[in-house]
C-alpha cells in the first residue's frame, strides 16, 4: 500500500465540493481510501481512523488531501484525478441555469471561454479586426478573417502570433474556407474526399471544390489564406502553415494551391516547401501559360487515378445570331473567375481586348464593395450593370458568373433569370453565357438554378473555363463573320 498525505495551507473549498472529490477519487480502481477535507479537528479524526497520519499544524483553514492506493501507478493516477477535480473550472451552466441565459459574449475571448470552439470567424470592420483576432489566438482558436482593410503590419503580426501558438490565421480578406465539411464564409457543400485546397483566392477555391465534387472526388479541407498572403511582405506565412497542416492530415491525399500569381521569391519558397511534403501538391495560378482551374482539377483527378468526367453544362435551346463587331462583356462576382475568364478571352480574342470593345468587370473588387455587401450577397449593383450592358447595342455576348453555396444569396436565378430573359427577348442577336459555380447539395440547388438560367436563354456551364471559351467563341465568331452560331467543339 502507498500512502500520500499533503496539507495545503489556506486552500479553502466548501465541504460539498470536497466530499464529491473524495468520493470520485475513492471509487477509482486500485484506490483503497481517499479523502480531501479542510483540516478541522473532526476531519482530522476521520483521517486518523482511516489510517492516515495528519501532519502537525494542519488547521481548519488548510486543505488536507490523503490517498491510499495499492501501488505507485494507482496512487499517481489518483493524485492526477484529484488535482483535476480540485482544479476543475466551473463553467457557467448551459443556458444560464436557473436565472436565465447569460448575456451574449462581447469579445472573442469570452465567447471562446463558453465552449470548446476551434475557430473564430471575424467579419468586423478591418480597423477593428486586430484586437479580436489576437484575443481569439490567445484563447487558442484558429482565426478566419473575412474582413478586408486590415493593415499588412497587423496581418503579419497576427500570422506570427498564430505560428507561435501552432495555429493559423486565414485572411484577412479570406472569403472561403471549409473545415471538416463545414463551410466558413462563402463555401459550397461538397462531398468528402482526398483533395485538400490551400486558397489565396475564394472563388478559385470554390470552382475547384465544385468541379472535384462533380467528378466524384470530393474535398477534405479548404484552408483560405487571404489574398495578400503570397505577397512579398506577408511571404506565404499562412500558406506554409496550411500546407503543413494538410500534409499531416490523414484524410488528405493531394493538395492543390490556388492563388493569384505570387511574388516570385514567395513562389520559390512555397514550391520548395511543397517539395518537402509527403503529399503531392498541384498549383493553380490563373495566368497566361498556366493551367486554368478546370485543367488543374483534371490533373488532380488523374493524379488520384480517377476518370475526368464531362463537366456539367446546360445549353439553351435558343440560337442567337450575333452581329459583326459586337463585344464580349464579362460581369463577374468572383474575382478569380473573372481573371481566369479574361485570360482565356485574351488568348482567344487577342491581347488587346479593350481595344476591340470587350470588357471584364469584377464586381467583388474593393471599388464596388466599399460600403456595401459583396455581389454574392447583394446582387443589385451587378444586375443594374448587366441590364445596362444588355441594352448597349455594342454588346454581343454577356458572360456572367453565379456562385452558389453557404453565405451566398438564397436564390440568385430568381433575380438574374428575368433580367437575362428580358435582354435576350429584346435583342435576338444577343448571347448570354453563365458560369455556374455550385453543387447539387448547395442550399440554392445547383441544378434548379441551372435550369432557370438555361430556360431564360443562357448557355450554362459548371466549368468557368469552358464558359469563358464558349463566350469568346461566340464573340469571336461574331467578330469574324458576323453571323451564325458557333458550336462548342466536342
Amino acid at each position, binding site marked *: 500500500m502507498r500512502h500520500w498525505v499533503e496539507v495545503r*495551507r*489556506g486552500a*479553502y473549498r*466548501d465541504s460539498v*465540493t470536497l466530499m464529491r472529490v473524495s468520493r470520485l477519487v475513492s471509487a477509482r480502481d486500485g484506490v483503497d481510501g481517499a479523502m480531501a477535507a479542510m483540516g478541522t479537528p473532526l476531519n482530522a479524526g476521520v483521517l486518523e481512523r482511516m489510517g492516515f497520519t495528519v501532519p502537525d499544524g494542519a488547521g481548519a*483553514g488548510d486543505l488536507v488531501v490523503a490517498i491510499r492506493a495499492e501501488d505507485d501507478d494507482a496512487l499517481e493516477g489518483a493524485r492526477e484525478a484529484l488535482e483535476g477535480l480540485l482544479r476543475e*473550472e*466551473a*463553467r457557467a451552466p448551459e443556458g444560464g*441555469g436557473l436565472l*436565465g441565459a*447569460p*448575456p*451574449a*459574449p*462581447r*469579445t*472573442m*475571448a*469570452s*465567447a*471562446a*471561454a463558453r*465552449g470548446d*470552439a*476551434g*475557430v*473564430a*470567424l*471575424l*467579419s*468586423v*470592420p478591418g*480597423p*477593428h479586426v*486586430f*484586437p*479580436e483576432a*489576437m*484575443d481569439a489566438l490567445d484563447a*487558442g*482558436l*484558429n482565426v478566419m478573417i473575412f474582413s478586408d482593410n486590415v493593415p499588412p503590419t*497587423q496581418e503579419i*503580426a497576427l500570422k506570427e502570433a498564430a505560428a507561435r*501558438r*501552432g495555429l*493559423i490565421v486565414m485572411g484577412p480578406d479570406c472569403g472561403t474556407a471549409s*473545415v*471538416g465539411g*463545414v*463551410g*466558413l464564409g462563402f463555401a459550397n*457543400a461538397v462531398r468528402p474526399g482526398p483533395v485538400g485546397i490551400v486558397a489565396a483566392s475564394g472563388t478559385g477555391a470554390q470552382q475547384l471544390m465544385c468541379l472535384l465534387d462533380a467528378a466524384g472526388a470530393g474535398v*477534405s479541407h479548404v484552408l483560405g489564406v487571404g489574398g495578400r498572403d503570397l505577397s512579398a511582405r506577408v511571404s506565404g506565412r499562412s500558406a506554409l502553415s496550411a500546407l*503543413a*497542416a*494538410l500534409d499531416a492530415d490523414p484524410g488528405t491525399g493531394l493538395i492543390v494551391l490556388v492563388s493569384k500569381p505570387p511574388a516570385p521569391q514567395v513562389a520559390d519558397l512555397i514550391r520548395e516547401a511543397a517539395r518537402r511534403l509527403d503529399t503531392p501538391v498541384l498549383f493553380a495560378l490563373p495566368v497566361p501559360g498556366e493551367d486554368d482551374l478546370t485543367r488543374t482539377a483534371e490533373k488532380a483527378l488523374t493524379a488520384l487515378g480517377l476518370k475526368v468526367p464531362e463537366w456539367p453544362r446546360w445549353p439553351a435551346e435558343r440560337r442567337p445570331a450575333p452581329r459583326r463587331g459586337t463585344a464580349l462583356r464579362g460581369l463577374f462576382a468572383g474575382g478569380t473567375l473573372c481573371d481566369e475568364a479574361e485570360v482565356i478571352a485574351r488568348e482567344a480574342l487577342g491581347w488587346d481586348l479593350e481595344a476591340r470593345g470587350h470588357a471584364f468587370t469584377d464586381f467583388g473588387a474593393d471599388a464596388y464593395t466599399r460600403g456595401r455587401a459583396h455581389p454574392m450577397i447583394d446582387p443589385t449593383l451587378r444586375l443594374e450593370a448587366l441590364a445596362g450592358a444588355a441594352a448597349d447595342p455594342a454588346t454581343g455576348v454577356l458572360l456572367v458568373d453565379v456562385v452558389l453555396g*453557404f453565405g451566398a444569396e438564397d436564390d440568385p436565378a430568381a433575380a438574374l433569370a428575368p433580367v437575362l430573359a428580358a435582354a435576350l427577348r429584346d435583342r435576338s442577336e444577343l448571347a448570354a453565357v453563365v458560369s455556374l459555380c455550385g453543387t447539387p447539395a448547395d*442550399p440554392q440547388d445547383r441544378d434548379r438554378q441551372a435550369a432557370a438560367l438555361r430556360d431564360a436563354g443562357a448557355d450554362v456551364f459548371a466549368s468557368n473555363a469552358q464558359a469563358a471559351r464558349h463566350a469568346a467563341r461566340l464573340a469571336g465568331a461574331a467578330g469574324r463573320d458576323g453571323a451564325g452560331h458557333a458550336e462548342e467543339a466536342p
Partner: protein
Amino acid sequence: MTGGEARPPLGGLLAREPRVVTAGVEVLADALARQAVPVEAVDWRPPPPGTEAALAAVLGAPGHAEANARAVERMVTARPHLVDVRPAREVLGLEPGAFLHAGPPLEWERASGPMRGALIGAMLLEGLAETPPGAERELARGGVTFEPCHHHGAVGPMAGVVSPSMWMLVVEDAEHGGTSYCSLNEGLGKVLRYGAYGPEVIARLAWMGEVLGPALRAAVRAHGPLDLLSIIAQALQMGDELHNRNRAATSLLLRELAPDLAAASEVPRERAAEALRFAAGNDHFFLNAGMAAAKAAADAARGVPGSSLVVAMARNGTDFGIQVSGTGDRWFTGPAGVPDGLYLGDHGPADANPDIGDSAITETAGMGGFALAAAPAIVRFVGGEVPDAVAATQRMYEITLAEHPALRIPLLSFRGTPVGVDVTRVVRTGILPVIDTGIAGREAGTGQVGAGLVEPPGGIFTDALHALAETV
C-alpha cells in the same frame, strides 16, 4: 499536453467537428447555423474612435498575453494573512501633521465635503486644532500634509483618512511577501470616514485607539497569522460580497479571534468584552480587513511590464482614479460619479457626494460588485432583483482576465468570481466595472446618506490604454 508529445496541427482543427465563434456580419453566422454547426456569436460593438492604434499596439506587443496572465496569476494566488494591529505612526511612519486619504492625489481646494470633514475630524483627534473652524483654517493654510493611502501600501474606506494615532490592520501576503494596511472600522452612522466629525465621532476614535486597537493586537498576536482569503471564500458562500455586505465575514473573523481575545491576559476582561461587543455590533467590521486583503492581492500584481491589468480603483470624492500594472504608479483620473442607489431617511440624490473611497479595491480583486451574484440579500439594496445581480457578475466576466480559484459563487455553479479588470477589454467592450459603494453626504459633517452602485468614468481606461501603448 506534456513535453515530448507532438501537438496536433492547428489545435486539432482538421480532426474534429468544428465549433465556431463569430463576430461581424450575421449572414456568415446564419450560414453556419444552417449547416448545424454550433456557433457562439459575439455581440461585438466598435470601440471608441481613436483607440484602434493603441489597442493594436498593446495587444500586439509580444508577451502581452503572458504579462497579463502573470499579473493576474499573482493577484489570485496572493495569500493575505492578518498578522498584527499597530498604530499608523509606527507601521507607516506617519509624523504628527501627516495624513493619508482615499483615492488619487488631491489638494484641499478641490476636496469634497466628506473629505474635508474627515480631515477636520482627524485634526481634532490628533489635537492639531481645538475647533472645526480652526482645523479648516489650518488645512486651508497648508499647515499639514496629506497624500493617498495607496502610496503607502494602505487603503481607507470612504474618505479613508488615516492619522498617526489610528490603529491599522497589518496584512502580509504569505505567497508574494507584500504588506498592506487598513484602519479599523468605526461602525455606521455618524463616522469619520463619511465626513462626520462631531464629538461622538472623535470620542469613538479615541476609544478605538485606547481600547479596541490594543485588544485586537493582543488577540491577533496570540492567534498567529490569520488567513483572510479563507474567511473571504467562506463568507462569499454565506451570502457576503465583501464590500457592502460583510456580515458573514465579520462573524467568521470574530469566531477566529474571540477565543484568543478572551485568553489574552494583558487585556482586561471588560475591555475585551467592549471590543467584542463593538465588533459584533458592526456588520462592516470585516470590511477593512477585506480591503487590506484585496490591496495585498492587487499589489502583488503591480509592475508587470506590458500588463493592462488594473491594480487599483480608488476615489477621493472628487476624482476617480485607476492604476495599471504596466504603467507603474501613474494615476489615470476623471470626475467621480454620483452613485445610483437607495437613500437613508429623508436623504436624496441632491444630498449625495460624488463617489469616494479606496473600498473599490475589493472590486479590483474580484469581490464587491464583481461578486454580486453571491450576495442575493443585498441585491435589492443596490439595484434590483436577483437576476440583475447575476447579470452584473456575468457582465464582469467580459472585462476580466480570470476567474478566482478560491472565491466561488454557488448560484453560478461554483464558478469563480470574475477577477482582474483588463483595460483593453473595458475599452473594447465599453463595459465598465460595477462597484458597490456607500454614499456620503455632500456637506462636511453629515455622514452616510445611502448606498448603491457606481461606475468609473470610461475615459480613464482609454487614457490608461494610450499610456500603456507608449510603453510597449
